[in-house]
């Protein structure tokens, strides 16, 4: 096995991991703060990809089409996320876990069909702008330049989220809410507003991630179903509510996939679930989580 193949496999695993990180970071944050596991996260991610395609189509003749469409899709999804939070999620804050899960699961079905109604069943393809169309060379190894872009976006979001959580007042409140909601509430901080803010932020990142994913391959109905389960695995491995954990978990899952595809293609996805199950059995709160709410 030569080094160049390992290197390119590592980079593709990294880009895959970063893609998962973009989805899982919002999922983890929402669960950490609101204690709601959002099944529909990947469905909103997919909706972001479709929105990106529509915006891109409108501006097709301009060179900047994709670069404008990505944040635009994120913003639209943030609006939709706000609507969902206020209309639906808010009603189940105090409900039991299965009820909350079912509500978001029902959203998966509804959003899936709404996407089908709005955009039809044909696959959508975004033609990449010339900046990211060709390969780039690392030590003479060709590598898809768009994957580099994906990795950069992942790193940027990770740093941005870290700065937000560590350096801003609002971020401190969010971190405190992960630790103890009761205490935050006792300090006079309106918890529902924090919840809404976190949810909208998570969906904004997910929508943008969908838009970033869109030009990787074709946009297909049902993509969300496979992705959401892998995002769950990432969050479980890293630990709910931990940003660092989500980052590490994403890279682990991405690399497991990239390397097992090389050596044992049938087992790639099985292996991800084996690792997830082992973590859950040995350390249910994940690599970087804190053992708290069961």
């Amino acid at each position, binding site marked *: 096995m030569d080094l160049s193949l390992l290197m390119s496999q590592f980079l593709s695993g990294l880009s895959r991991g970063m893609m998962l990180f973009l989805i899982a970071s919002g999922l983890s944050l929402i669960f950490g703060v609101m204690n709601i596991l959002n099944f529909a996260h990947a469905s909103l991610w997919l909706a972001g990809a479709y929105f990106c395609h529509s915006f891109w189509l409108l501006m097709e003749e301009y060179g900047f089409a994709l670069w404008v469409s990505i944040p635009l899709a994120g913003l639209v999804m943030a609006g939709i996320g706000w609507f969902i939070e206020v209309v639906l999620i808010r009603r189940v804050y105090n409900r039991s876990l299965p009820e909350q899960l079912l509500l978001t699961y029902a959203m998966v079905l509804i959003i899936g069909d709404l996407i089908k109604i709005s955009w039809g069943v044909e696959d959508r393809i975004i033609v990449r702008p010339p900046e990211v169309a060709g390969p780039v060379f690392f030590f003479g190894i060709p590598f898809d330049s768009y994957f580099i872009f994906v990795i950069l976006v992942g790193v940027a979001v990770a740093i941005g989220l870290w700065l937000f959580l560590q350096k801003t007042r609002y971020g401190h409140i969010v971190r405190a809410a992960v630790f103890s909601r009761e205490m935050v509430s006792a300090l006079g901080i309106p918890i529902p507003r924090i919840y809404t803010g976190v949810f909208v932020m998570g969906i904004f990142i997910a929508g943008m991630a969908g838009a970033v994913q869109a030009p990787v391959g074709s946009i297909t109905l049902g993509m969300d179903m496979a992705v959401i389960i892998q995002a769950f*695995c990432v969050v479980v491995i890293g630990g709910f509510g931990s940003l660092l954990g989500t980052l590490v978990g994403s890279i682990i899952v991405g690399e497991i996939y990239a390397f097992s595809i090389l050596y044992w293609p049938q087992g790639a996805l*099985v292996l991800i*679930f084996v690792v997830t199950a082992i973590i*859950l*059995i040995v350390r249910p709160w994940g690599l970087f989580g804190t053992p708290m709410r069961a």
Partner: protein
Amino acid sequence: MKRYGWFLGLIFVFALVLPLLVGEFWIHVAVEILILGLFAVSFNMIFGYMGQLSFGHAAYYGVGAYVTGMLMVKAGVPLPICLAASMIGAGICAFIIGYFCVRLTGIYFAILTMAFGQMIYYIIFKWYSFTGGDDGLQGIIAPGLLFSANGYYYFTLFITVLALMVMWFISESPFGYTMRAIRDNADRTRFVGINVRRYMLINFVIAGMFAGLAGALWGPFNRSIAPDLTNWHQSGTPVFMTVIGGPFGFFGPMLGSVIYTFLFAFVTGFTEYWPLIIGLVIIFVVLFVPGGVLGFFESRMEGLRSRRSRSPKPEESTP
């Protein structure tokens, strides 16, 4: 629940004469109701009685379906033996998986059962030489008398009623009440000297075995099986049925299966957007009818009865 005895008898008689009343299409729907209802009732052994959400219950359903399917197609084993083998196969799977799952509760239990379920799905999906992979398994034909729609209907009815009776006795036995105790307060149950994990594991295996039985019945009915039977969407079906019907009653999931399957047969007749409809139904039930249809009617009847008699009934321990 005893006071509904006459009502259950009436439904059973109705089920017996059903083939005289309706055509073959609705007999197929009825078989589906029975199989999925059995699946949902077995799921509720974990959800309603043990208080844990299993999101990988389709794994045992699928394993049951594959054991029967492969024994029939590859070895020509008679159907009754296949059903028993399916229960054993699914039970073994549930034992191995449950051994780890009962160590966790709440969200972690749900995700671990799901992770194991997905493992089984991908194993069946990728193991072409053994399971046929995503081509599935075709030509699972029920023998002789059972080949006709009515024949298979009566067979399914017989097996389902038998299985329901066994599960009913389990749920009303001291074991069943131990499960309720664990659901309501696992710590206190442990304090009185009950090995909570062992009881949970036994319950998990029983639930898995009956899910396997339901899966075994599915193959000869559908004449083919596919790995999708074990995928996580399939695990959602019994959850939906149970929540629609009501988890706090033995027959709630069965009622849920009737509503769900009828709705499915009806809605898919004129639109392809079935997920949209069922999604809206689920949201409606979760937001406005938290106890499910059965819970809704029971609270209504309680209300009527107490208004009539003016004497508060003692707190009833419905499952």
